[in-house]
């Protein structure tokens, strides 16, 4: 085992903050930058997606779940062989991973964990807005969010007028009817309704007759990419992928955990296709509530754990790298003797990403979005300014 606390993220705690300025807004307003968050629900197994190479502890405890033909990323980490799109991005310096990371939540309930991954808080249900929504509010990005879901995810709460896209299986009424409704709303001073109907009417002119779009994440992502690409389009998009809670038959390369990872991978690809060159000004991050136990259970699945990994893609990444302050997998190095530890507060990554994409000083995000919690500024380390 060669790895010993390499690729430290700790060093980057020195910040960009200039003394004497009060929360300077970094001047970089000429290009539109986009942030995409993919929520992985159910607890993504970071060690299945990005396994460590040559660790006896790992191989011993997961005999039946070890993957064949993994893709080597560096001397210490490999990639799940089905994540081909991510690997392509990686090869172009458009893909990176933060490993052994999680939100500061250790109780292993999906219910509470998913709430906290979206609010960014410490106490389940105590905060009613999402960290992304609060970050957008700080950046004054009203109306710039796009959820690829029907209800607005909690993650985006905190700023009004976000758009969402989740195609109905039914046909919209004809455009002139929508325009009539819009003019009625406007006449009756129902401005919010009028704005929404404007968006809907525009959508209906774009759609091709009665063929309704698929709700598969891969096609939603293509659509999102095309929208984000527009100079006056949304700047933030949010996806959800379910099914990571694999207590049984998690399996190897063709197991059920792989199915969900493949879905995530298809989003990376479709976003890249939709965005075209604008992938260069985009950052895509994943978010999950916790990782999974090192040890396989009696049903060849895994239980709820703690540390997981964050996938990142896009041109705002500095380079392809697995960033980790690796805690090790010996029993005493595990969290409560069973889980991969989290050595990096995942919120540090999200706060740094918002700082980079929204051009807001990290300390302001730390203070106003995350209540001044102790987070590291990783912007310099991970992202292009």
């Amino acid at each position, binding site marked *: 085992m060669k790895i010993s606390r390499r690729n430290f993220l700790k060093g980057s705690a020195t910040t960009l903050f200039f003394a004497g300025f009060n929360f300077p807004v970094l001047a970089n307003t000429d290009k539109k930058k986009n942030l995409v968050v993919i929520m992985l629900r159910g607890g993504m197994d970071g060690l299945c997606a990005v396994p460590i190479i040559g660790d006896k502890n790992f191989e011993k405890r997961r005999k039946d779940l070890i993957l064949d033909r993994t893709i080597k990323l560096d001397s210490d980490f490999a990639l799940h062989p089905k994540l081909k799109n991510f690997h392509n991005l990686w090869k172009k310096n458009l893909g990176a991973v933060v490993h052994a990371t999680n939100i500061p939540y250790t109780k292993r309930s999906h219910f509470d964990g998913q709430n906290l991954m979206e609010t960014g808080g410490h106490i389940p*249900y105590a905060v009613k807005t999402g960290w992304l929504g609060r970050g957008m509010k700080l950046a004054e990005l009203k109306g710039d969010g796009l*959820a690829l879901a*029907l*209800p607005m995810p909690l993650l985006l709460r905190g700023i009004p007028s976000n758009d969402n896209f989740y195609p109905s299986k*039914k*046909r*919209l009424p004809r455009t002139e009817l929508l325009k009539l409704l819009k003019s009625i709303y406007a006449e009756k001073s129902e401005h919010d*309704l009028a704005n929404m109907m404007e968006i*809907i009417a525009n959508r209906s002119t774009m759609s091709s007759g009665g063929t309704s779009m698929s709700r598969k994440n891969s096609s939603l992502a293509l659509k999102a990419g095309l929208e984000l690409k527009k100079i006056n389009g949304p700047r933030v998009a949010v996806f959800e992928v379910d099914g990571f809670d694999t207590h049984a038959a998690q399996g190897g390369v063709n197991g059920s955990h792989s199915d969900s990872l493949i879905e995530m991978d298809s989003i990376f690809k479709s976003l890249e296709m939709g965005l075209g060159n604008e992938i260069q000004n985009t950052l895509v991050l994943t978010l999950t509530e916790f990782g999974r136990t090192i040890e396989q259970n009696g049903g060849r699945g895994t239980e709820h754990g703690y540390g997981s990994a964050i996938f990142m893609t896009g041109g705002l990444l500095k380079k392809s790298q697995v960033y980790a302050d690796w805690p090790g997998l010996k029993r005493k190095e595990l969290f409560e003797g069973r889980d991969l530890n989290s050595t990096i507060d995942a919120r540090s990554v999200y706060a740094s990403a918002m700082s980079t994409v929204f051009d807001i000083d990290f300390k302001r995000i730390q203070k106003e979005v995350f209540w001044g919690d102790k987070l590291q500024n990783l912007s310099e380390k991970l992202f292009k300014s």
Partner: protein
Amino acid sequence: MKNFYRKVAFGLGPNEQAPSDPLEWAKNQLNDIPEFSWKGKILPEKELRNYYRDYVYGDRKVLRKKFKNDKEGYKREKNKLRHATGQKFWWNLELCIRYSEALKSETPVLAKLWYFWGNHFAISEKDFLAQYTTGAYQREIIRANMNQNFEKMAQEATIGWSMIHHLDNEQNIGPKSQEAKWAREKGKTKGVNENHARELLELHTVSPDCGYTQEDVIQMAYIMSGWRPKWGKKRLETGDVHFNPDAHEPGTKIVLGKKYKRGRKSLSVAITDLVNHPSCRKFIAMKLCRYLITDNPTEDMMEPIIKAWEKSDGFLPEVHKAAIEVAFNYSDKYNKFQNPENWLLQMSKMADVDLIPSPSFMDLYQLGNKPIKDQRALERLMDELGQHPYLAKQPNGWSDISEDWMSPELLIRRLVYAREAYYKKSGKSQTTKFYEEMIEKNYDNPSEILQIINQYKELVHKHVILFNLPETLKS
């Protein structure tokens, strides 16, 4: 004034005459809890919970082990188990029961308030509660207590199996309790889970306005420690809720300055104190006004409701009547944006949409089978509209703030499902005359509305516009 029928109920249906005294019409619906108007099968919560037990046991203890190397086999057998336990059927049946109260009963005002309370003491999306027991919980614990004091509803909801399980109180173990000691001897730590205690304070009774502290939450959790389902090897977590003294935190607890002794009785004493706290009645009055009248209730609106509460000791029929009267008094000044569910029911009632499958059709369902598509129509429709009543995302239930229901996709759903609904109407209600009478009966500006919708010739277009006019979206 006519929007009052839509504000506190779902408007007037084709066979209903406008009552001579609308306020009395509404108030008279609130004294008793009539039998359900659904004439098909209605299962007790306990029976549905047993189906849930069969599902979790079968999945967790049998299939996961049996199919550990066979993803496809696992999927296949799990699907069989779903149907063997009615997982895709029961919640559709519950929605039939629920919506019959709005559309077919003599007490639609009671129904609209039932939905309010079900959402106040929400069981949000967790495990498969929605598919098995949430509807029954709302029948047996919420609706059944709507002619009682608020306290009784709060007591029963708090120790209802659904609520205890939903808010993790089975994991709430006093750190100095016997169980925590046993755990320590095995090198494990067990302690308090504050979830349920926090929601009891924040969402169900006094609200943060009363100024409780984190310490109050912890102390409340100590009081609640030990309340959990009776565990069994086969029952797993689905046993009846009981008080287990081994998990209860010893010693005296202090919540909002008051002391509570250790033991079983302290929870019910604490709930009595919480529901009698002035912040509780104020909070409920605010929420009732927010649900019925406006996003931003004023003190003047809340006051009569608080007074009625004080006079009747929180007797719900009196509290409801006061709220309805306030809604009546403000009905010309305020229009409330209707959530998708209430909007759908309004449209179905006024336009005579055949929303609910018939009892005989639903009762054809046999366990072990996949329900046929039309038996699942309601569940899918509510999901499409964005507000399945048993799948609120969080314990605070579905929002009753307009802004939360305004997104392009949510409005698109109203457009497309207004159109769908039109085709579920009987032929005799697909006439211009039917619409003229309905609009006359239910809207205060019938001629203006007719002028707008008559810009279209086809009735289906008139229908879509009518149910997306501001006058309909807001009542």
